[in-house]
């Protein structure tokens, strides 16, 4: 344990290597299995026994989307847990993904004829609208973290009710919306990568630059103010970043549960509480979770594709219970 705390950098490096390894193997997993040697052959420009087309058009875009979305959700969760100072905070809990989900369900069920890009645009706006709601209800008169969490839960409940209403109103068409609501990397192509990459690749470093603020906020409002930190402004800025990260991820892969909640917790176990390490570690863990979940979904029962969201919930929920127990004990 002591060693762990002393060398978070080394752990971070290890996590990175693990992610690279899993990603590499993941390229080979699917209806057609490709061994590590075949993958290497592809990477140096070969055709991997005729599987190059499958790798290039189906596997790689999925994996890249999975990496980016996993990072986005992991980061968003880490930031929110820091801002709200509550280990239960996550994009799901404060209503961001629910807002995106309601907007997406409305597009899928009410306007099935809209162009394909309408869906991510709507989902992202839905997340944005929840953010505006949070601002209006929680920020105008100086925010308390607990109030922020409660208002987020309330907004999320409203959106959830909307989703329920839509699925009851359109029982058969709901099938199409369910895939999205479970969250899945299935069928993602390079267009989706281009849609998602700018958001994550730009916002992630900005978040990391602000990780010192999260450390300061964690000391409590009074201490933070005393250290010269404009608490409310910092909180709002960080919250906005978290919304952009989660909103972008959810817009592309759907309302994948648990990654935003679990990834920061796992990361905290590994690198400790300092956000300089926790932020990148959460991003790596989120990516690792999602890529693993998608590989399982693709490889376990081909040709059936199991949505990644099912695996993240199956892995995530028990781990979370274990975690709660551990926290209670200590």
């Amino acid at each position: 344990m002591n060693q762990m705390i002393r060398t978070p950098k080394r752990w971070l490096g290890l996590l990175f290597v693990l992610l690279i390894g899993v990603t590499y193997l993941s390229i080979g997993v699917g209806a057609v299995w490709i061994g590590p040697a075949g993958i290497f052959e592809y990477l140096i420009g070969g055709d991997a026994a005729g599987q190059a087309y499958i790798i290039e058009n189906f596997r790689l875009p999925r994996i890249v989307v999975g990496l980016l979305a996993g990072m986005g959700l992991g980061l968003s969760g880490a930031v929110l847990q820091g801002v709200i100072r509550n280990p239960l905070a996550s994009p799901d809990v404060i209503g961001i993904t629910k807002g995106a989900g309601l907007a997406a369900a409305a597009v899928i069920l009410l306007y099935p004829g809209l162009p394909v890009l309408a869906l991510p645009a709507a989902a992202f706006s839905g997340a944005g609208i929840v953010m505006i709601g949070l601002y209006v209800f929680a920020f105008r008169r100086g925010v308390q973290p607990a109030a922020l969490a409660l208002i987020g839960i309330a907004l999320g409940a409203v959106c959830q009710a909307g989703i329920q209403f839509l699925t009851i109103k359109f029982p058969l068409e709901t099938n199409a919306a369910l895939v999205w609501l479970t969250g899945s990397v299935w069928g993602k192509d390079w267009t989706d990568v281009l849609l998602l990459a700018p958001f994550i690749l730009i916002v992630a470093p900005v978040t990391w630059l602000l990780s010192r603020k999260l450390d300061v906020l964690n000391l409590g409002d009074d201490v933070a103010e005393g250290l010269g930190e404009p608490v409310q402004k910092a909180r709002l800025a960080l919250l906005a970043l978290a919304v952009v990260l989660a909103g972008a991820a959810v817009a592309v892969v759907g309302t994948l549960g648990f990654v935003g909640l679990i990834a920061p917790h796992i990361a905290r176990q590994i690198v400790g509480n300092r956000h300089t390490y926790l932020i990148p570690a959460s991003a790596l863990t989120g990516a690792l979770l999602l890529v693993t979940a998608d590989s399982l979904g693709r490889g376990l029962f081909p040709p059936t594709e199991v949505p990644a969201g099912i695996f993240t919930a199956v892995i995530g929920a028990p781990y979370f219970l274990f975690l709660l127990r551990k926290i209670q004990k200590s």
Partner: protein
Amino acid sequence: MKKYTSYIALLFLVLLLAACGSEDEGELQESSSGEDSGEQETRVVEHEMGETKISGQPEKVVALEFSFVDNLASLGVSPVGIADDNDEERIIEPIREKIEDYTSVGTRKQPSLEVISSLEPDLIIADMQRHKDIYDQLSDIAPTIILPSLAADYDGIIDSFQTVSTAMGMEDKGEEVLADHKEKMEELRSQVPEDENRSVLPAVVADSGYFAHNMESYTGSLLESIGLKNAIQSGDDRYNKINLEQLVEFDPDVMFHMSSGDQTVVTEWENNDLYQDISAVENGEVHEVDRNMWSRFRGLISSEKILEDAVQYLYEGR
């Protein structure tokens, strides 16, 4: 303080630029896809997602909805790949007889693109609601047409059949099949007496609820076409989850139940006096029908079979 404002301003500026950039990319890809077909005589097939050029007669066809399996079987074509939800049993008997062995490409919700591409098809037929998001990827594998199936009524199913026969380069054969089909439908219609005034209600009965199909739904519109009036003539939704009170209110004279699972809401309702008072229940006109045939297939062959079923229950059972 200033630092944040500038961070965030910069951030949004970059995001805006990035968003514009990626949209252009998307359009480019769309316009270039689907144009790589060969030089043989080509025809342009119009469908829900635009136009697709198809040359020659496709030999390897992948069907991502059961409707299209039905359409292909009607034309005497055997698809190489079917999204059969990994359950061969879902292909109804009269159609399984007509087609040869095929490869399952997974679920209709999320068919495996990898398996589809490994089959090297030369035509893919997909559903508007389920598969429009992967149209680009499918088009990249092979010429793809997207048709309504999940959301179509009986007329829509006939339109889709015609589009499929055009896409297959089998218009003449298609006309023939359709003429036979219409004749068959006429014959079935003639078995329904002019003065038939009983109302019918087809419904999917599941553990999660009673899903009534109204006059505009596929099964409902099909039954209407031979003069069987649907009990639900109102409402803008084709499929409605209704409760027992509403069912009593609609009071159908005949009910066709497509059950999923042994335990359904009806198992519970049966103990209720209200349910026993519904005309269909009083008259013993509640009929269990095959869900695969009655609601999943939505094609020519299944349409005929559904009506044969219905006519048999209504006029020969007595």
